[in-house]
């Protein structure tokens, strides 16, 4: 998505939760969502039966209302979504849904990670060019921005056609979504040094490359990491979107399409695929965040995002 942080990450909201607090809050929020979910079904769902029971099994609870959006097709029971992970993913398949989805998620993650690395490198390269040449910046940046107004879903078929259905096509789609946030954030980040520090460097007659490595790049790290966290998710989105037209059958994108086709008979499986996609996105985000914490541990707290 064209989601880009262009501000310094110091606009935090006071207390910065540690990852432990994040996990706890996340857990509480998930629990809350599950409670509301089942509460809605308790009031307006279809009659409750035992988990994974066939129609006709004894009714455990008969909700007073019948809301269409809360029936078992639109809003399956939370426990059924959990239990579906342990069912075979296809009739007569050896793997259960959990194994299958984890396998596809790892496959998608590899594509995404490759796109992420390429996109980050491209973004860094472009931003470096732009901060050293105002002319280039003015000439090209508007098109970098405009490139993101084309929904990637629309471009994916063209990319696939140009390079052939392959992992390469998927990686290109992921790269396309990744380079943008990095480019825009780093144009800012590479200029976010203290002007006094720049004067100091110039008083040493430091070369452009010395200024880049010793001042611009270190000063830009908070911006870089803010962008990389966005790019991590974007690369997953790109990989999922790219797999359909790219003809890749081993990834999450395919799993979502497949389970969508069997939604009527097993809505829980599509939900399971969505849960795994979300987990993959958050996992990649957390990985980048971990790298940030590790690399930025010596910086004052307000320089970290």
């Amino acid at each position, binding site marked *: 998505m064209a989601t880009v942080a262009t501000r310094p990450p110091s606009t935090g909201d006071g207390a910065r939760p540690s990852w432990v607090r994040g996990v706890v809050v996340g857990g509480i929020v998930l629990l809350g969502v599950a409670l509301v979910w089942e509460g809605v079904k308790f009031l307006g769902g279809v009659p409750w039966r035992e988990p994974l029971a066939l129609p006709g099994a004894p009714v455990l609870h008969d909700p007073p209302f019948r809301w269409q959006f809360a029936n078992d097709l639109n809003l399956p029971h939370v426990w059924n979504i959990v239990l579906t992970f342990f069912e075979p993913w296809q009739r007569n398949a050896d793997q259960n849904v959990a194994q299958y989805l984890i396998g596809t998620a790892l496959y998608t993650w590899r594509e995404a990670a490759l796109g992420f690395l390429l996109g980050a490198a491209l973004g860094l390269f472009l931003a470096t060019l732009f901060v050293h040449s105002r002319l280039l910046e*003015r000439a090209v*940046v*508007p098109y970098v921005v405009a490139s993101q107004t084309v929904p990637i879903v629309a471009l994916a078929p*063209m990319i696939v056609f140009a390079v052939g259905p392959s992992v390469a096509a998927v990686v290109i789609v992921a790269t396309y979504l990744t380079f943008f946030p990095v480019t825009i954030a780093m144009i800012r980040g590479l200029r976010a040094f203290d002007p006094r520090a720049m004067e100091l460097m110039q008083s040493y007659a430091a070369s452009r490359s010395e200024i880049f490595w010793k001042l611009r790049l270190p000063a830009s790290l908070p911006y870089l990491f803010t962008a990389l966290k966005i790019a991590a998710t974007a690369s997953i*989105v790109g990989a999922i979107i790219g797999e359909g037209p790219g003809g890749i059958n081993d990834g999450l994108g395919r799993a979502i*399409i497949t389970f969508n086709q069997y939604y009527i008979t097993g809505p829980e499986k599509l939900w399971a695929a969505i849960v795994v996609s979300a987990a993959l996105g958050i996992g990649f985000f957390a990985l980048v965040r971990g790298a940030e914490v590790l690399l930025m541990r010596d910086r004052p707290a307000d320089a970290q995002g």
Partner: protein
Amino acid sequence: MTVTTAGAGDRMGPRAAGGGRWRGRAIDLLPAAVVFVGVLVAWELIVGALALKAFILPQPSAILAALRDNWAAGGRFALSTSAAATLLEALGGLAIGTVVGVVVAFISSRWVTARGVLLPIAVAAGAIPIIAFAPLFNNWFGVLNPLSKAMMAAVLVFFPVMANVIRGLVQVPPAAVELMRSYAASEWTILRKVRIPNALPYFFTALRLGTTLSLIGAVVGEYFGGASFVLGRIVVQSASALRYDVTWAAIFLMAGTGIALYLAISVIERLAIPWHSSVRGIDSR
């Protein structure tokens, strides 16, 4: 995290208003215009000369012709009908997502605990590939119902709007609140006179971002199935029919719609908060 698509040129904004500003603006835009014309001409000439895979990358003139020939309603690729349908989905989603986002932000900005829960969710939502929900929305709201696409767009728009408006309402300079308290102003007065004006720039930043997101949401929803005369389907259908000139015409139509929406919001922003667009260059709060 505060999100915006505003370009890097923001900091260069001249301080003084006046005639020089417009000339400066024209000079700013000149290199981009040169690139635009240059790329267009080179593309036309090179593709024409080499006839290289011309069917993937047709000449600009061919794309323009495809746009013209397939514009009318009733044709095989009724681009005008399709663009209108996609635009309607996107605008509907933008409206729903914005209204709900603003309402939730106002309610939650009053309670610290509500913010404590909602902001992490907004951050987490940013880390989730929300597009994975698109097939689900098609099932919920009906695959042929434009509402299913609008809702996809609305969800994408909702989170940045909510998060930004909460920030704008909450991140008021402490001295401004002290000043208001020294007047013995009520919370309601502080909300009206300080918090809401303070939140407007944040709101417009989110709204500008939302224009792009709403189009992406609509097209992603279309990608997972639905009515035929929408831009997302036209791209797929024309590509499988090897009519790449039409595919590119549809793609540029999407980009053009996105840019037009973005510019429209920018114009509204300039009119609504002139004090801010002028200050932005100096004080990037």
